[in-house]
């Protein structure tokens, strides 16, 4: 507690708007008739289905396996029948569809046989990681990076500190707050497992000072576990975007993660509290990741709160359950008001990364036409990564992508501080997202063009070789023909004297 805190530049003090959804304890969302499970709910390769249409599955049964290293498994959130494996709309800013497994639930919610582990120290760290991978656990803070990778420091790194991220700096979202208030024991279980897997003793649970209930809940639970003496709750000032991994590390340790580097490079690993809890469930209870806490809040929501929701539950059912004034197909925000995106479409499923649904932002920015940039520089002051959003804006807008990259576009965490403070209401982050995907697309196309060039050159070389061989053969045939003809003539002329002795090889 006495640890000196660091800081990061910029950032914002935002109105939390969190009271609305923290009045009631976490509730369970009733079972939905149909669950839609996208095969890609995480960063990396999509999982591969291992069931087929018509199969009966039990709750917690694995229905898709991990493909490649950066990937995790997927499990049936409830018992029922697989009714389809096809393209379905997914919650993505593009509004596109992707391959999903649909399950018709039978209402019995019957678990598959679970294998809880009483003493995880009997297993090796590697086995623990594999269990976590097979349980389909990904970062529940919003990014969805497979957690088992972040529990593997590798041979070249030594982890000094594990940071448990309970900051939740974005307004409206309260799912981490509620899980810390109500499930502190489970979180501490998860910390024990993580510390074991990472060989680390020092652990920091970082919580913003606007969550006193969560702080006291965790301190209370921690008091009952004297063996966790190097685990501390660190209270940090409320400022957006402290919850972003690199900014949090800067606040807690005062160290900066280098550009293009990972926290592990400076001996730090950080995990979200929700992820920590999910890891505890998977090891101690043998339950794979099949549900998460989703905050449903906003001006238009009657019964705002946090709901333990099975993955695949259609979002509109969740919204109906909470009672919203929302009309069908009316857009809503998935994620926070700063970094989330608008979605519309009623049948989008809740996924592993869906932390918050907002219907009706209180002081929402009206969609106004942006005014010209007045070069006030507010955006540079607000930027938590010390970038120059204004320069990035000019270059992104002119599609001068190389220049944008020179100004470290890829260090942008898309926190939205610059757009928020812009007096001209220029959608700066939108420009940066646009420029980033354009650059990535260009790189892909360049790679493809390089392959095409090599294939074309190989083809030309092959054709030339074939041509040469053909000519050679033709020459040989001609020579042979000429030789035999010459021989015949010779034979005819010299028939009475001598038999011919022509070497066809010679004429080549």
């Amino acid at each position, binding site marked *: 507690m006495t640890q000196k805190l660091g800081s990061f530049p910029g950032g914002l003090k935002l109105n939390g708007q969190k009271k609305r959804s923290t009045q009631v304890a976490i509730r369970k969302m009733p079972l939905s008739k149909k669950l839609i499970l996208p095969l*890609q709910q995480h960063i990396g390769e999509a999982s591969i289905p291992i069931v087929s249409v018509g199969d009966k599955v039990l709750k917690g049964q694995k229905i898709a396996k991990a493909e490649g290293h950066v990937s995790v498994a997927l499990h049936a959130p409830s018992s029922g029948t697989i009714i389809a494996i096809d393209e379905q709309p*997914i919650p*993505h*800013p*593009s509004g*596109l569809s*992707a391959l999903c497994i649909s399950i018709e639930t039978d209402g019995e919610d019957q678990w598959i046989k679970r294998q809880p582990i009483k003493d995880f120290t009997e297993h090796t760290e590697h086995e623990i990681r594999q269990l976590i991978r097979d349980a389909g656990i990904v970062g529940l803070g919003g990014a969805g990076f497979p957690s088992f990778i972040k529990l593997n420091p590798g041979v070249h790194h030594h982890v000094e500190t594990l940071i448990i991220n309970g900051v939740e700096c974005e307004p409206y979202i309260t799912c981490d707050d509620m899980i810390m208030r109500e499930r502190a024991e489970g979180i501490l279980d998860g910390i024990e497992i993580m510390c074991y897997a990472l060989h680390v003793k020092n652990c920091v649970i970082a919580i913003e000072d606007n969550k006193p209930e969560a702080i006291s809940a965790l301190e209370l639970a921690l008091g009952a576990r004297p063996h966790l003496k190097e685990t501390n709750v660190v209270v940090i000032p409320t400022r957006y975007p402290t919850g972003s991994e690199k900014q949090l590390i800067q606040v807690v340790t005062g160290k900066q993660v280098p550009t293009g580097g990972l926290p592990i490079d400076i001996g730090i690993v950080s995990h979200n509290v929700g992820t920590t809890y999910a890891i505890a469930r998977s090891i101690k209870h043998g339950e794979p990741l099949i549900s998460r806490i989703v905050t449903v809040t906003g001006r238009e929501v009657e019964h705002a709160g946090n709901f333990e929701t099975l993955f695949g539950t259609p979002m509109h059912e969740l919204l109906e359950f909470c009672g919203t004034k929302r009309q069908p197909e009316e857009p809503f925000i998935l994620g926070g008001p700063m970094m989330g995106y608008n979605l519309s479409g009623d049948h989008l499923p809740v996924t592993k990364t869906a932390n918050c649904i907002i219907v009706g932002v209180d002081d929402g920015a009206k969609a106004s*036409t*942006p*005014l*010209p940039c007045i070069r006030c520089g507010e955006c540079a002051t607000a930027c938590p990564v010390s970038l120059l959003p204004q320069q990035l804006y000019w270059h992104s*807008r002119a*599609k001068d992508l190389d220049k944008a990259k020179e100004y470290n576009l890829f260090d942008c965490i898309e926190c939205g501080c610059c757009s928020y403070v812009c007096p001209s209401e*220029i*959608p700066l982050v*939108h*420009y940066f*997202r*646009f420029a*980033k*995907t*354009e650059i990535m*697309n*260009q790189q*892909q*196309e*360049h790679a*493809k*063009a*390089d*392959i*095409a*060039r090599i*294939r*074309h050159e*190989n*083809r030309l070389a092959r054709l030339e070789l074939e041509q040469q061989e053909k000519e050679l053969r033709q020459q040989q045939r001609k020579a042979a023909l000429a030789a035999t003809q010459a021989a015949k003539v010779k034979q005819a002329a010299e028939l009475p004297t001598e038999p011919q002795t022509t070497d066809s090889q010679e004429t080549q």
Partner: protein
Amino acid sequence: MLTAILAITLLALILGLVLGFAAIRFKVEGDPIADQIDKILPQTQCGQCSFAGCRPYAEAIAAGEVDINRCPPGGEATIHALADLLEVEFKPLDEECGVEKPKMLAVIDEDRCIGCTLCIQACPVDAILGAAKHMHTVIASECTGCELCLPPCPVDCIDMVETKPKPNTWRWPDPAHIDLKLGDQP
């Protein structure tokens, strides 16, 4: 008068020798600019620029024989990149060569294919697989969408389909369309 002529001649002689030496010493081999231009071109090898592939077009640009706006598959982005590299003014795409189309992919209707191998011979990047009298198919990841396989097909069984964006290749739309246009200030 004579001294002046002599002095100037001497001067010319010495300087000429220096230049002659430099010309040998700093002789340039190959054509490095053509390489860089070739890197920018999309390598569809489609020949819409009226050259027999991307490399010959790159060499022609480097030699200053043709304009930079003759590549429809590369579109505006390629012309911008070329203009940037060579520091010349941007020019809109030459409509003689074609129009910029979304990225396409050749797909063989396998029921109609008679296995004539003509498209295999036409494909500049060896992206079509098959043997005589057997069905052919396009390796989707290698197809550049150059359309060169369309004309030789005797039964018209090749279709060009637009490649649909997938969530992981999807690009955020350009926000500039809601932005103020240049010079619109009141």
